[in-house]
């Protein structure tokens, strides 16, 4: 068995009290936590610190660890005879056992070595898997099938899963009992799936509803029109009522991500030609003369009250 200097890993003296140990660990955990640090060795450093802290924060484990003395890091060492009695009463060897596993087993009241006797076989739940998948909006509406590859100490396996129709952004799903196998009567682990929706060139999701921009010519908005609009199932005709103003949301019922339970909204934007033909200019000038419409009339009134 190889010795690891847990005090050196945490950077504390061997006489450090629990508060010093905790502070040193938290500092390292904050620095090297894989969610925080981009350093390539962050995960290994974090695990190393967590392993050291798991032993040194526990009075019993720390006392057992201190019994080992202070051999150089990485040196082969022989555990005290009492450890043989406590952890391997059947006479199993410690040679292939990691120090961390042995000390962790001490907390669970069982041995860390394969083939050695067990004192109290506690049920151990199988590993949970958390993964995320990216779906197109079309697949989210229709539902889709995919393969999830799950790898752990027990090997690699592929699980074919069907994502039900009507998924939405940040939806979380749980597949019970399909994670790692439980041990000693423990439950099998679960799979947790996080759904991400890939950005779409036209549609923007909000929960199960979808939004898109509908550009209208001024005369379409004023007079009303039948316009062809896209949906996830193909183009459809939308009736634009006469007098439709910019910003109005026109609903296409049941065309959202969850069929029949969510909607697609066209947000109206009124566009004008960047350049006008001579005839168009005449018509607009004519309209400007005859129309009494003032789009800013109400806005000025509202401002006057502020």
């Amino acid at each position: 068995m190889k010795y690891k200097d847990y005090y050196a890993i945490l950077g504390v003296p061997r006489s450090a009290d629990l508060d010093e140990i905790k502070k040193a660990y938290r500092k390292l955990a904050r620095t090297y936590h894989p969610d925080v640090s981009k350093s390539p060795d962050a995960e290994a450093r974090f695990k190393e610190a967590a392993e050291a802290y798991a032993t040194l924060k526990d009075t019993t484990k720390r006392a057992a660890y201190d019994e080992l003395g202070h051999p150089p890091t990485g040196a082969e060492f022989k555990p005290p005879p009492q450890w043989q009695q406590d952890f391997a009463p059947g006479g199993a060897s410690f040679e292939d056992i990691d120090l961390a596993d042995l000390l962790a087993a001490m907390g669970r009241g069982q041995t860390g070595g394969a083939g050695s006797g067990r004192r109290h076989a506690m049920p151990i739940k199988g590993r949970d898997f958390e993964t995320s998948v990216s779906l197109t909006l079309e697949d989210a509406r229709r539902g889709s099938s995919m393969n999830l590859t799950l790898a752990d100490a027990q090997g690699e396996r592929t699980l074919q899963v069907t994502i039900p129709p009507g998924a939405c952004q940040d939806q979380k799903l749980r597949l019970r009992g399909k994670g790692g196998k439980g041990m000693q009567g423990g439950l099998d682990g679960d799979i947790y799936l996080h759904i991400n929706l890939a950005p779409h060139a036209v549609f923007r999701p909000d929960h199960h509803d979808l939004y898109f921009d509908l550009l209208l010519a001024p005369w379409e908005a004023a007079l009303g029109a039948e316009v062809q609009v896209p949906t996830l199932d193909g183009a459809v005709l939308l009736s634009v009522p006469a007098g439709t103003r910019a910003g109005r949301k026109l609903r296409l019922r049941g065309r959202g991500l969850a069929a029949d339970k969510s909607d697609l909204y066209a947000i109206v934007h009124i566009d004008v030609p960047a350049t006008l033909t001579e005839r168009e200019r005449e018509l607009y000038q004519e309209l400007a003369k005859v129309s009494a419409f003032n789009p800013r009339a109400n806005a000025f009134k509202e401002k006057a009250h502020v």
Partner: protein
Amino acid sequence: MFDEQTEWLNLDVRASISLTELAECCGLTATELDELVDYKALTPLDGVASERVFSAHWVMPLRTVAKMRLDFDLDLFTVAMMLGQLDRIAQLEQQVQSLQALLPQRQRAPH
């Protein structure tokens, strides 16, 4: 090797989960979950069931805070505070998404 799928469970407000199962999902004990309820960080659903029942939307934030508790050796009160903040962040993210959906395509912030 291919394995067969069983039923997906939605982890949102449409589904509920018992105290025992919630404890199994997030790696906290039932007593610890009760303490989070006492701190008002976690709210059970109303009902007359013999066991407390919760909205399934708590599963993922509880798994997150339970992992952070282990990783940073946090006490349960800190976990309660974090759970509240995570819930607030999730609500705000949802509001941002809803507002972004209303913004014209050309005005949206890049992902």
